[in-house]
């Protein structure tokens, strides 16, 4: 059990130190200096879930890594040998690994903040001289006012520690730590969001509202560039592509708000970027899923195919990194930025650009709804192109709901997105399976050249085809059900309500 406190307004550290000496009776003679690192994923998943991961490095070189709740009372302390974990899989403790896997969902741990702390430890002993609690006063060297007191109970002496914390609270010098414990070291609250919320008003002019949305998503897109370039984890590219696809989708959905020539120019360069990033993303997903696809076959052929997939991924990544560091990317981003700033000032506005955004949005929503409802489930099952079109329509509708979310009634919007997610995930799965089958066939061809055992590879490919077809059948059934559900009166009423409110 650990309780965290911060100084009460007006309280001084010297007064607190004297009070702690009185309560504890003694303190470690020499305050310790250590370097503290806070770790979290780029999108601050640990902080969002209420957890803090901190690593203390002492001058002696030992590292103590902890995952603990921001405000809670239970620690999960562990000693770790450097280097610090980069992914959940790097943690040797099974329980910690499982918890991190759940919290991080594949994202890498990055060092978010580093600070130097001065630590004083006060030991609370009972009448038998038994240590019952340790009080640790932590002061960032750079900001002494931001002192934090941590009260650690010795296992089995929680009752005695609670009495001490009551005494401390009664002193009026402390108050429970109500903020993320990382804040005293200068770690700002999470600001990054893969899908930022842009506050719009129904009466905003459509072109300007769209410009603000595009600006926010461009910031998200660019924030993910370092992660892609350094290959910290594959989610950077995922977030980058979500932002990119959303931008492209809105440019199409609200095309009447933008002057056609300017729109065509920027769309062309964004399409190129989409193709460049798509190749790596497909291989990222394939590499992640390949072990499941070949789970029944652990032979040499499966191994060779996996190695080839990884090599292809490395090639695709190198191509993308080259492109992102090229002058043409810099120029394309500069043009995009100029376009956005002009759009914000009211330039490049199309024929509907000066209309109210809610009206334009309403028409776009109605159009997408109608096109999804027009799909025939049987046709989609038979024709992969139709299925792909259905998926694109679903995405376009979902991006509208997510990007312009501040214009909708939250509960109805959430329900509508949830309904769309089911349909979209099933169609998306089918699309992935098609892409993967194509990629695996290509990769197998390259492995076969110079392969000693082509028969084994052919057998594996046949097995993979059968497996992917089975998976596809399961998803096709999901699409039929989801499409029927989407067309139901109940779901359509949700969308009616959504559009009424938006209008």
């Amino acid at each position, binding site marked *: 059990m650990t309780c965290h406190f911060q100084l009460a307004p007006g309280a001084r550290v010297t007064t607190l130190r004297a009070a702690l000496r009185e309560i504890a009776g003694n303190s470690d003679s020499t305050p310790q200096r250590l370097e503290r690192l806070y770790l979290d994923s780029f999108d601050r998943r640990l902080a969002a879930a209420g957890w803090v991961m901190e690593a203390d490095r002492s001058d002696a070189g030992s590292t103590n890594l902890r995952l603990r709740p921001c405000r809670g009372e239970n620690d999960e302390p562990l*000693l770790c040998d450097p280097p610090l974990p980069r992914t959940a899989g790097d943690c040797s*403790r*099974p*329980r910690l690994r499982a918890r991190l896997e759940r919290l991080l969902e594949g994202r890498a741990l990055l060092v978010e903040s580093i600070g130097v702390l001065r630590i004083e430890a006060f030991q609370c002993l009972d009448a*038998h*001289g*038994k*240590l019952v609690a340790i009080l640790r006063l932590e002061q960032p060297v750079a900001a002494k006012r931001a002192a934090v007191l941590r009260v650690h109970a*010795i*296992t*089995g*002496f929680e009752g005695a520690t609670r009495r001490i914390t009551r005494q401390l609270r009664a002193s009026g010098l402390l108050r429970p730590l109500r903020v993320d414990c990382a804040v005293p070291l200068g770690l700002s609250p999470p600001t990054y969001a893969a899908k930022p919320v842009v506050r719009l008003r129904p009466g905003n002019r459509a072109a300007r509202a769209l410009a603000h949305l595009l600006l926010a998503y461009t910031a998200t897109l660019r924030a993910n560039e370092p992660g892609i370039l350094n290959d910290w984890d594959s989610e950077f590219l995922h977030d980058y592509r979500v932002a990119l696809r959303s931008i492209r989708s809105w440019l199409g959905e609200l095309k009447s708000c933008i002057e056609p020539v300017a729109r065509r120019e920027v769309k062309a360069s964004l399409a190129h970027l989409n193709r460049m990033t798509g190749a790596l993303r497909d291989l990222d997903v394939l590499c992640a899923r390949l072990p499941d696809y070949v789970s029944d076959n652990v032979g040499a052929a499966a191994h060779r195919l996996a190695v080839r997939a990884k090599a292809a991924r490395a090639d695709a990544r190198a191509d993308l990194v080259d492109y992102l560091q090229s002058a043409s990317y810099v120029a394309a981003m500069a043009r995009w930025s100029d376009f956005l700033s002009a759009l914000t000032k009211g330039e490049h506005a199309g024929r509907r650009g000066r209309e109210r955004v809610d009206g334009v949005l309403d028409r776009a929503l109605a159009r997408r709804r109608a096109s999804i409802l027009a799909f025939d489930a049987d046709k989609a099952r038979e024709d992969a192109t139709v299925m792909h079109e259905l998926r694109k329509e679903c995405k376009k509708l979902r991006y509208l709901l997510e990007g312009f979310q501040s214009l909708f009634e939250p509960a109805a919007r959430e329900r509508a997105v949830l309904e769309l997610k089911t349909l979209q995930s099933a169609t998306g799965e089918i699309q992935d399976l098609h892409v993967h089958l194509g990629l695996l066939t290509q990769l197998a061809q390259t492995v076969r050249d110079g392969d000693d055992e082509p028969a084994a590879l052919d057998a594996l490919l046949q097995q993979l085809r059968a497996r992917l077809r089975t998976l596809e059948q399961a998803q096709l059934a999901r699409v039929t059900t989801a499409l029927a559900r989407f067309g139901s009166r109940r779901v359509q009423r949700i969308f009616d309500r959504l559009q009424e409110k938006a209008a």
Partner: protein
Amino acid sequence: MKVFATYNVKGGVGKTAATVNLSYLASRAGYRCVVWDLDPQGAAGFYFRIEPESTTDPAAFLEKKRGLKAAVRGTNYPGLDLIPADLGHRNLDIALAEFRKPGSRLGKMLDALADDYDLAFVDCAPHLSLVSENIFDMADHLLVPVIPTPLSVRAYAQLREFCGAHGLDRDKLLPFFSMVDRRRQLHCELITSFAAEHPEVLRSFIPYTSQVEKMGEQRAPVQTFAPGSPGARAFQALWRALCARVGLDDGLPAADEA
């Protein structure tokens, strides 16, 4: 989790002192350690300044799946916890007999702590009983302190015989000499003859010193209040010998650095 039990059918041979000091050294070496005081006298708890638990029903204690976790108490030393003795557990044998597999019950209870600790040290009471069977079952190694006297050596021989008769793994037995007075000829002779007869004996012994006796007064491991004393050095040497035997890193500075 590796389990060491300090065991001897004979009392007063230095089992608890060995448990306390070795577990302390293990925790200093970076291992997460727990000491389970199975001796109702509660001497290990006394050394760590933790009072024994009030009497609880042993049957209820054995039934609880998380019984041990709830009983864990932190000591004054980081990485070293204690499960204190409970006077109610003097009848543990009777309660154990009620179980379908009485010989492995305590081991199963200790398994609940496997994720939390690297090493467990079990301080046993001096008797041969159902509890002893549990100790043989759960321990990876039985540390047997032997005083270099005929009675103590005989007790070790009896223990080996008992293991043989009950199909228990004799390789688990790791005897070491305790309370050695090298001024006595009998001690020296017995140590030599015993080592020749029992190659499994750890090549390090604990001398009879006043510092080890002072543990009861200081209520702490000897390393904490007399780190350079012969007693403290002897326990370090014993820890080093034990680690070398069982393949653990002792975490001590190399002999030439020390």
